């Protein structure tokens, strides 16, 4: 009889989807925390002058919401985030309601690592960001 290991709890195809509201005050708080006060994040006029529809949420604000899913849902407490990459494909302007999905696309049984895909979709159906992460299961 073999003991079940933490990695055995996960299978390719497992996924979690979270609906995440985006508010102007989230951008303010992230700008304050990170120090990234670039004009496109802080000023609707500056963003409009660059052809954007309003203040743009920081890419890593979106990444922090992904981190929350990986850290608390999939894989959750048993995971240690090893790598994460995101490609930003369309701006996110508040107010919006994002659909953030993290899914298991691969796993290494030998070293206990999950490969995760990341998709962030705006409420209009446009994909705002895609990416990949790897998490070690311990």
């Amino acid at each position, binding site marked *: 009889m073999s003991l079940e290991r933490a990695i055995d709890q996960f299978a390719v195809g497992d996924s979690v989807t979270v609906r995440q509201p985006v508010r102007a005050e989230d951008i303010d708080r992230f700008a304050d925390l990170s120090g990234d006060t670039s004009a496109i994040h802080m000023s609707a006029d500056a963003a409009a002058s660059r052809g954007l529809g309003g203040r743009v949420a920081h890419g890593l604000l979106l990444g922090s919401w992904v981190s929350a899913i990986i850290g608390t849902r999939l894989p959750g407490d048993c995971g240690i985030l*090893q790598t994460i990459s995101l490609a930003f494909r369309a701006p996110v302007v508040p107010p919006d309601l994002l659909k953030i999905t993290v899914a298991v696309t*691969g796993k*290494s*049984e*030998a*070293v*206990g*690592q999950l*490969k995760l895909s990341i998709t962030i979709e705006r409420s209009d159906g446009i994909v705002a960001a895609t990416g990949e992460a*790897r998490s*070690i299961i311990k």
Partner: protein
Amino acid sequence: MTVSLEEIRPIFVDVLGEKARIITEKTRASDVEGWDSFAHITIVVAVEEKYGVAFKTEELGQMTCVGDFITVLNGKL
């Protein structure tokens, strides 16, 4: 198909840096600065994905040097 050290050396270099250019089949992880558990996981997964193989935990536990790793890899190809 048989994989040589030279064929997988780019993976070691990518993970461990230029010092991986002097790795031989007798090299052990403890011989290379920076070859820690994170680097080890990255190397193993990169090789698994490149060659479409899956190692077993027991196999990794029995490997003592780079040559052992290559021998087990070739046994799966």
